[in-house]
Structures are given as C-alpha cells and as structure tokens.
C-alpha cells in the first residue's frame, strides 16, 4: 500500500511539468521549438497518465481525480517541476536539470522489482534520453551564443540551482521501496547527475553555480506559491461542473 503515494508523486512530477511545457504553446521563440516543446509536454503528460493509471489499479483515484480534484497541499511533486519557467532561459535551464535527472532515474526504474514501474521506466528512459540531448543542445547554444544569451542562461541556472537538491532525497514513504528494489535510490544518482551537468555546462561555457542553498518540501505538499495559481487555472473548469463528463 505504501507504493501508491510513491507512484502518485511520480505522476505529479510529470503532470505539473507537462502543464508548464504546454503553457509554451504559441509562445516559443521559434516555430520549430514550439513543436519540440509540445512534444516534450505530450511526453510528460503521457507519463502522468501512466503513473496515475497505475495508481488507480493500486486502489487510488482515476487520472482526472488526481489532476483536478486535489488542492495544492495534496500535490506531492518536487518543487523544481512546478516553477513557472516563464522565460525561455528559465524554462531551458529547468528542463535540462530535469532531463539529466530523468535519464538516470528512468534507467534505474527500468530495473524495478515492480513490473509495471519497470515498463514505465523503460518507456521514460527512451524519451528522457532524447529530451536530455535536446535540452543540453539548447544549453550549449545559448550558453555559447551571444553575451546576452550567456548572461541570461547563467542567471537562470543560479535561480533554479537550489531546487535540484530535492531530486536526490528519498522521501520517508519511498525509503522502504528503495530497499525492496522497487524505486531507484535517488541519493545514488547525485554523482552521475553532477558529472553529466558539469560536462554540458563546460561545453556551454557556463559556470556550475556555487552550491550553498536548497529549497525543499514538495513531497510533503509544501510548495511554492506558484502551484496554487497553476492549479486554479488547470482545475477551474472541471470543478465548476461537478460530475460532468467531457
């Protein structure tokens, strides 16, 4: 039974970032990149549906129950995923840090002792590898582009950097599942992640930020103020018509 909240949490991560990415529709700097961001958004939303669907078979709600009928305090996504990323530098920096993590995490998840999670992990791994290539290329292009683009990217990295720490913490509910080989041990992914990120940042002529600050709380439902606003928009129509089918 303790598997359920862990699966929902992974669904929440995917859902809120899928929503953030879909907000870029009609706003990207190049039409080609607009297509790419929509693809990534569709992958994350698809992932959310897989996790929520699995949660449903474990006795949880259905996907719309999770998406539309929980308040911000009940969402357990990590904070990094919910940040607005409202300009292209912020969106790109966040996406790169997430993709680099997902690539490593999904590779381990694909070996899960739980068959469903292993299947999801294998699917996510294919996507995440592709996403990481794409977002790393953008880091390099913008870091090693103009003076302005380098300045913007360095600033975006500094602004998001403290949110990375949560990626490497196993929540109390997750710890026993880590021990049973059902979930990857997040703490063990840190070194490889740091190396992967440092390699790309070096190629991008960007500096790895000084690592002194950390913001945490997502898995406990202690979010940024941004999540409530996002959910207000995401949920209002569904909640305005209780019981309606769409």
């Amino acid at each position, binding site marked *: 039974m303790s598997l359920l909240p862990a699966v929902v949490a992974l669904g929440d991560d995917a859902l809120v970032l899928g929503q953030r990415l879909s907000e870029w529709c009609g706003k990207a700097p190049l039409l080609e990149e607009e297509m790419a961001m929509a*693809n990534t958004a569709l992958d994350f939303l698809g992932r959310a*549906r897989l996790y929520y669907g699995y949660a449903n078979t474990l006795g949880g709600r259905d*996907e719309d129950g999770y998406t539309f009928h929980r308040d911000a305090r009940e969402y357990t996504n990590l904070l990094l995923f919910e940040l607005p990323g409202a300009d292209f530098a912020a969106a790109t920096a966040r996406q790169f840090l997430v993709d680099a993590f997902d690539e490593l995490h999904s590779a381990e998840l694909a070996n899960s002792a739980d068959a469903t999670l292993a299947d999801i992990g294998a699917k996510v791994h294919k996507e995440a590898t592709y996403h990481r290539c794409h977002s790393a290329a953008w880091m390099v292009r913008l870091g090693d582009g*103009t003076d302005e683009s380098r300045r913007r990217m360095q600033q975006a990295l500094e602004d998001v950097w403290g949110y990375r720490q949560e990626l490497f913490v196993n929540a109390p509910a997750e710890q026993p599942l880590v021990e049973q080989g059902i979930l990857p041990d997040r703490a063990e992914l840190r070194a490889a992640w740091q190396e992967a990120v440092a390699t790309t940042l070096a190629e991008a002529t960007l500096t790895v930020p000084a690592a002194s600050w950390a913001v945490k709380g997502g898995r406990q439902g202690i979010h940024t103020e941004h999540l409530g606003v996002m959910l207000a928009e995401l949920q209002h*129509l569904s909640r305005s018509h209780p019981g309606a089918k*769409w």
Partner: protein
Amino acid sequence: MAAASDEFQARIDREERIEPQDWMPEGYRRTLVRQISQHAHSEVIGMQPEGGWISRAPSLERKVILLAKVQDEGGHGLYLYGAAETLGVSRDELIDAMHTGKAKYSSIFNYPALTWADVGAIGWLVDSAAIVNQVPLQRCSYGPYARAMMRICKEESFHQRQGYDIMLALARGSAAQREMAQDALNRWWWPTLMMFGPSDADSIHSSQSFAWKIKRYGNDELRQKFIDQAVPQAEVLGLKIPDDDLQWDAATGHYRIGAIDWDEFQQVVSGNGPCSRQRLAHHRQVQEDGAWVREAVAVHAAKHRAGSDGPKAAARNSDTAQEGRADAAV
C-alpha cells in the same frame, strides 16, 4: 516572353505540376506567395484561440488531444512557410508583412474563444471548413503547395473529429453543457460561413486563379458543400443552427441559408475584428521575446560552422521539423 507564358499555360492545362525551378509568370508567383503565406499565417495565428484553452481543458485526455491538435496547426504553418520560401521569400519577410498588415490571415481567428465549447465548435466547424477549402488545393498546379496540402489534409480529419467529439460530449451532458454548446454554435456559425470568402461575383482574385489552377471551385460552391455537411451534423447534436431562414431545397438538393452579413466580414477583414489587435500583438510580443534566442542560435551556428558540431547541433534543434530549417528563420 509570350511564348514562355503560352507554354506555361499549356503545361497548366495539361495538369502538369509547376516546380520552383520552372519559369513562371510574375503574377503567378505573387498570387501564390500571397495565398500560401496567408494560409501559413492562418495556421499559426489559429493556434491562439484554441491554444489558450490547453491549460484549462476539463480532463487530462482532452488536454492531451487539444495540445496535439494545436501542435499540428503549428506544423502546418511550418510546411506552408516552407512552400512559400520555395518562391524566393523568407519566413521573416512573410511575418513582417503580417505584422505590418500587408499580409492577412483568416478572419475567423479574430473571434474570441470564450468557453470550452468554443474549442469544440472551432474543431467541428472551422476545421471542417478548412478541409472543404483544402482538399481541392491538393491538386493545385504549384507542386510544393499541393504537396504541403496533402500532408495537411491527412491531419485535418483528426482535428474535425476531436472538435465534433467535444460537441457531442457537451450535447449529451448537463443542461449547462448543452447551453454552452448551443452558445458556441450561435457565435461560430456565421463567421465560419464567411471563411469561404465573398460571393464569386464579388471576389477580386478569382478568375486568373482558376485559369492557373490554383483555385478549382468557387467560394459559393465550397460554402454550399460545407453547409450541406454541417446541417445534418448539427441535427445529430440536437443543436439549432442560428439561421431562421435555413431550409432544405428539394429541387436543388441543397440547404438554403439566410443572408450573410458581409459588412461584418469587411470589418473583420480590415482588421477590426474583436480580437484582431490582440492576435497580432501577441504574435509580435512572442517574436520580440524570442529575439535574443534566435540571435544566439545564429551566433552559435556561425561560431561553430567551421567545427564539426555545427550541423549536428542544427539537426538536433530541428528535430520535429524534418526540413531542418531552424537556421533559415534567423
């Protein structure tokens, strides 16, 4: 020159495809640039009214379907900008022409999408109308345009179905949902009929376009085709078409409609639609916000052109746009 233009017309008459490297009259080229770019701009501006509802879609499944639909429209824009570029104009020039009001886009997108039912009505009516318009364009005499239309038409039927499916769910839903659906039909019906343009008698671009086989059917003929399809569909939905003069004409086998308000059409076409300013301002703002990114892409590509990773990075950049034209835009 007369010989060249006679030979050109003869090729058209033989239903041969004209390709970018072929000789063509300047008027033919200009007509195509105008039509293809207007079409491309319509796809891109058309992302706005529906795109605004992705974040608010009422179920996760609807969200995903709508995002995929709006993404397709952006893809259509890319195919069409590509087709226009074969005529020797850049995407930047075409976009500038839209920003300065020289180039138009379909007036339909200057109406607001006020409720979720509007997303359904747009897919059902506007995409249906687009299909009726676009199917004959697959046989347009200009090869790149015809081929772009073939790719586009394949995707449009999914758009129409997702819209109709939204309407169907609303029509079978609660009283509030049915009301939402009727209200959307009321607001989108007449603007959709206007999408086909003025009556052929009043259309300024028609006759030469027929001779060049850019156009194959008249505006009224296409409009009638749409009406004959849409009226029975509205009946299945149990919704009322907002036209008291609408009636079946057994003699012709077509539905007859009341008078179209062409003054409203002229107003919207000349940039005074309810959302005309908003749509252009949004597009301009996005272009401005993204200027530093496009500049960085160009500078990065120039720095690394000599090196081995230039083409690789460009290929990665344009992953969904197989044309690989990310750099052409900057």
